[in-house]
């Protein structure tokens, strides 16, 4: 058996999950309370997993770095959540959602995982409504839907432009119920700094209390990571400021394979960067592309205000290039088209890095009131940030880093190659291939937490009864000492540059050399510059204060240290994947009209990287992707 055994059940695609559930091991209710499970992260995946596992009777400890689990960055998701309910009677089905997701991911995800995701998508909506999530409704009281990119059906459920918030508050309320019941113990303002392996199994974590600085050990029968993505390796992204790669990267250093780290999603509709003081980028939901038309001037350097550019001199480039999907082309394609227009000198705004998202036609057709009802909060947010009124003048948008499809490698059970280490949500690599479709992140986070992990965790746990080590075990003591040593090392450098200055420099480098377009040349440059930046960091960073206090510079320093190693892994993966697919666009591999050119012969696989020690080149493993139910076609949205 290869080390990358995906454990996909045999049998027809639509029966695999049923078969798996029947064949998986059960744990009797009296024994469940003898198990302890650690869940790191309290976003959609973490909170739903902790709540559901607690409800089943396991003793759960849940950790998050925020002051409350309700603040995890899932809360910021705007547009919606997909589900194959077919409530609109427009031809949707489990199979269509499955196919759209596989195709949207440019044929780089596992069939069986994606099919299961589409199957449980319908249960998620039922579950959330039962919890009181106030999804948008029609006047008759039925649930409303809208369309999202990469789909020709309306299968997206939403709660104003705040769907992530409402789904997370639902999961948070389920979590609260379990905290009150005593089955989940919550540790807010606590950051995981290491994974502890005992006899090769994940049996605990090392954490730092962010208020007192105390570093401590927690043992469990297994560890579940739901710690989100690594978009902040770019410094500027739509992620929250605290989002980081530390939990997954430190697990990687302990042996967990990192899969497809180069698959990052650049979202087409974000507010453009306005200056180098900027700390984050703000997304304007994809749902806006239902009613907004994307365009750039036809003439280079046209600096007239948008209203003065006549219709005949505008290039509605998505409608022109992709007539059947138009403004709802998938994210990777839309982002690249915007970049093309700007590279061509037709970008708008002060920086020239922007295109228009214009609502004038929709306002004329539907009235301002309807547009306000649909997107009012987004227009308000746009006005707060830019000072411009998008009812009167088109929004300016530009692509920005938004989501990471790569993550720790997991099998069908969502277990990594380390026994006992499970990885959920954005933190794993499993379902979105090389490009995620809009409104699918929320679906995956909740699918993993509510409906997958509760069934798959049993196979690992059942034979582990009574094997939980104590935190006195030497492996815990060693990991604790290593963690403290790294903290002291950071504090002792006392150099001349702030942590943020290193993070900005790394981010800019990653954006320029491993961003929307990559080449052998750019990646080679990145791979030579990152190690020297990392070296400078360890000699010249200035982290003031002590460990035994609230120290935000110290928290950031640990995360940036990991980004400085992880960035290199990302570039290496991008270099080795000699094809273009989804969000990974290698300039050398494109069709004559500039579309991504896949190489199914050599790259229809998952690249999973094994850590080989500091300073050594990580080892690349490949898990072949076998397509039995879909035909690998060239993705076309024309």
């Amino acid at each position, binding site marked *: 058996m290869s080390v990358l055994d995906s454990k996909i059940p045999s049998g027809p695609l639509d029966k695999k999950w049923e078969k798996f559930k029947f064949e998986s091991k059960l744990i009797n209710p009296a024994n469940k309370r003898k198990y302890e499970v650690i869940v790191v992260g309290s976003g959609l995946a973490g909170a739903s997993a902790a709540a559901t596992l607690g409800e089943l009777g396991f003793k759960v400890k849940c950790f998050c770095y925020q002051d409350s689990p309700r603040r995890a960055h899932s809360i910021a998701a705007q547009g919606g959540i997909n589900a194959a309910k077919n409530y609109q009677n427009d031809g949707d089905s489990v199979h269509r959602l499955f196919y759209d997701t596989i195709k949207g991911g440019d044929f780089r995800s596992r069939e069986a995982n994606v099919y299961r995701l589409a199957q449980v998508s319908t249960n998620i909506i039922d579950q959330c409504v039962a919890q009181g999530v106030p999804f948008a409704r029609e*006047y008759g009281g039925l649930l409303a839907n809208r369309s999202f990119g990469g789909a020709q059906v309306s299968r997206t459920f939403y709660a104003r432009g705040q769907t992530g*918030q409402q789904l997370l508050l639902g999961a948070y309320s389920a979590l609260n119920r379990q905290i009150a019941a005593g089955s989940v113990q919550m540790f807010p303002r606590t950051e995981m700094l290491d994974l502890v392996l005992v006899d090769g199994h994940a049996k605990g974590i090392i954490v730092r209390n962010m208020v007192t600085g105390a570093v401590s050990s927690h043992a469990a029968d297994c560890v579940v990571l739901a710690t989100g993505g690594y978009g902040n390796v770019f410094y500027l992204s739509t992620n929250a400021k605290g989002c980081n790669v530390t939990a997954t990267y430190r697990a990687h250093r302990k042996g967990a394979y990192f899969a497809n780290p180069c698959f990052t999603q650049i979202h087409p509709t974000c507010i453009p960067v306005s200056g180098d003081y900027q700390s984050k980028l703000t997304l304007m939901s994809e749902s806006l592309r239902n009613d907004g038309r994307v365009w750039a001037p036809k003439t280079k350097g046209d600096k007239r205000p948008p209203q003065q550019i006549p219709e005949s001199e505008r290039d509605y480039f998505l409608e022109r290039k992709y007539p059947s999907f138009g403004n709802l082309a998938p994210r990777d394609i839309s982002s690249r088209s915007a970049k093309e227009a700007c590279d061509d000198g037709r970008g708008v705004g002060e920086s020239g890095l922007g295109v228009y998202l214009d609502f004038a036609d929709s306002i004329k057709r539907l009235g301002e009131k309807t547009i306000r009802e649909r997107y009012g909060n987004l227009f308000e947010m746009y006005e*707060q940030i830019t000072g411009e009124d998008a009812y009167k003048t088109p929004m300016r948008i530009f692509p920005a880093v938004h989501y990471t499809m790569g993550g720790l490698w997991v099998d069908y059970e969502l277990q990594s190659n380390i026994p006992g280490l499970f990885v959920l949500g954005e933190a794993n690599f499993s379902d979105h291939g090389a490009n995620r479709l809009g409104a699918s992140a929320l679906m995956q986070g909740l699918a993993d937490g509510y409906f997958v992990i509760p069934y798959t965790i049993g196979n690992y746990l059942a034979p582990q009864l009574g094997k939980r080590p104590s935190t006195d075990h030497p492996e815990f003591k060693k990991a604790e000492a290593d963690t403290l040593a790294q903290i002291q090392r950071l504090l002792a450098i006392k150099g001349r540059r702030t942590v943020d200055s290193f993070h900005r420099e790394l981010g800019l480098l990653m954006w320029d050399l491993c961003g929307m377009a990559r080449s052998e040349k750019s990646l080679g440059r990145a791979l030579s510059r990152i190690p020297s930046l990392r070296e400078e960091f360890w000699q010249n960073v200035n982290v003031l204060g002590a460990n035994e206090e609230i120290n935000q510079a110290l928290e950031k320093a640990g995360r940036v240290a990991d980004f400085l190693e992880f960035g290199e892994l990302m570039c290496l993966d991008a270099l080795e994947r000699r094809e273009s697919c989804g969000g990974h666009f290698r300039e050398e591999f494109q069709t004559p009209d500039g579309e991504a050119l896949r190489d199914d012969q050599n790259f229809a696989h998952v690249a999973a990287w094994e850590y080989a020690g500091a300073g050594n080149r990580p080892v690349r493993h490949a898990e072949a992707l076998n397509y039995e139910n879909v035909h690998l076609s060239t993705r076309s949205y024309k």
Partner: protein
Amino acid sequence: MKHLNLKVKVWRQKNASAEGGLVEYEARNIPEDASFLEMLDILNEQLQEKGEPAIAFDHDCREGICGMCSLSINGIPHGPSATTTCQLYMRHFKDGETIFIEPFRARAFPVLRDLMVDRSAFDRIQQAGGYITARTGSAQDANAILIPKPAADKAMEAAACIGCGACVAACPNGSAMLFVGAKATHLNTLPQGQPERNQRTLAMVRKMDAEGFGNCSNHYECEAVCPANIPLTVISQLNRDFVKAAVSESVQ
């Protein structure tokens, strides 16, 4: 782009038990398109370069939804425009202005360091009953319950609360009625929330009192500062629900 030079007077306090005080700093060359928190970032970079520890403040999403940022700016929670601090932009300030920056002040929100406060009392109120019991996997089809649009909209309006605590900091009594009212209105308006309605209302209100939040005496400051536009009607709804629940409890 215009740049501003400002004086900021910032509350510095080493930890929960230390004494704190206002310290004056110069914030120079602040772009007017920067957010308030980006102004603090710039100031923090300048402080750290001079060897002075950065000002600690809570923040995360920086797009107005996570509710982690706080700060009282010139005495107003989240500052002059009714948004979160992270969505407040420096173009709202004048060159040469002096700005007072303090943590949210309330008995139930102890200061942890500088501008950071402990709002975990909010979590404990919700743990007391701010949920609908819906065991995972037991739900019926989502369209089996018809919810009239007005009810769904009313629930959504209340559910938009981001849990930042500005309502408490703005209230002279340190009351959390807007926050608890929002949660109760959200769940008590929906058909799914009816079975536990009384129990939920009583449990949350009692926990709110036990956590040291004050009473509502109709100052309406909470509504004025709320970045999520939670309407005051949630408080009257909470009062009605509480009375009904208390009566029903005493009858039983």
